[in-house]
């Protein structure tokens, strides 16, 4: 299935949770916030929330800004 992760289309071949998706793509889970189809997924729900074909996932964190 295809999903959109931080604006990039990627292909996933297995059933996967938000948590596994983060780990497999090299994100550090303790520093990020996740939006799934424009809704925030709270951290305790990451390993019980499945990713589905066509989902849009944003992984965000704080940076310097004015």
């Amino acid at each position, binding site marked *: 299935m295809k999903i959109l992760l931080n604006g990039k289309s990627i292909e996933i071949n297995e059933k996967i949770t938000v948590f596994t998706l983060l780990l497999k793509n*090299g994100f550090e889970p303790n520093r990020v916030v996740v939006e799934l189809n424009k809704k925030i997924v709270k951290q305790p729900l990451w390993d019980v929330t499945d990713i589905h074909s066509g989902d849009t996932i*944003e992984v965000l964190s704080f940076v310097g800004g*004015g």
Partner: protein
Amino acid sequence: MKDQLIIAGQKIKSRFFLGTGKFPSYNVMRESIISSGAHIVTVALRRVDPKLKSENIMNFVPKNRIVMTNTSGARNADEAVRIARIAREMGCGNWIKIEVIADNKYLLPDNLETIRACEALAKEDFIVMPYMSPDLMDAKRLVNAGAASIMPLGAPIGTGKGLKTKELIKILISEIDLPIIVDAGIGSPSHAAKAMEMGCDAVLVNTAVAVSENPILSAQAFSLAVQAGRLAYLSGIRGEKDIAEPSSPLTGFLR
């Protein structure tokens, strides 16, 4: 003499606010926050690139600071609201600087969308600090929308041109019963001092500090200028006259 800046019921310990973008390193940013004594610092939210193993900026913000997330990147009210909610979810508290910009050349804020975002976020109990083009009617709309302060620009972001909107900001100071904080365009400590002498309540600086040769010293210079300008305002300096007036007595000697 007691002179306390209060925003949304909270005592703010410094009238100098510091943005955290463009610093050569997070360590220099941290030392600049310390040297300036800034109590409110701003941060932004961005997509994470896992290839860049960058450090967590929050580990470099000294303790007991208010970290205010800006909504930079938002092009309309809905995007600003979305960013604010994410920031709060990340444990960054409820201080939010609304920045809605759809003009990429001059980075001027969209007041209309800013008002919409302010209304929505105030209802969700955010402490809303809107960055805006200094227009009196729009500032009044922001007050009605629940803003905690008004943050007019002095000049476009990052230009360092100073208080190009001075006369319009003076009108806001006179007519708006909320803290007025000049945000954007301040390029040197003298600009910051001038804003404070006029009666602004605080000043936010980022680029001018961060891109200077020594940001740690620069942050301190801006902070001292803000303090000097505030004292000058409170002291009631008289301003300019066209005709000279001797400061020493002219009578009783040599004539």
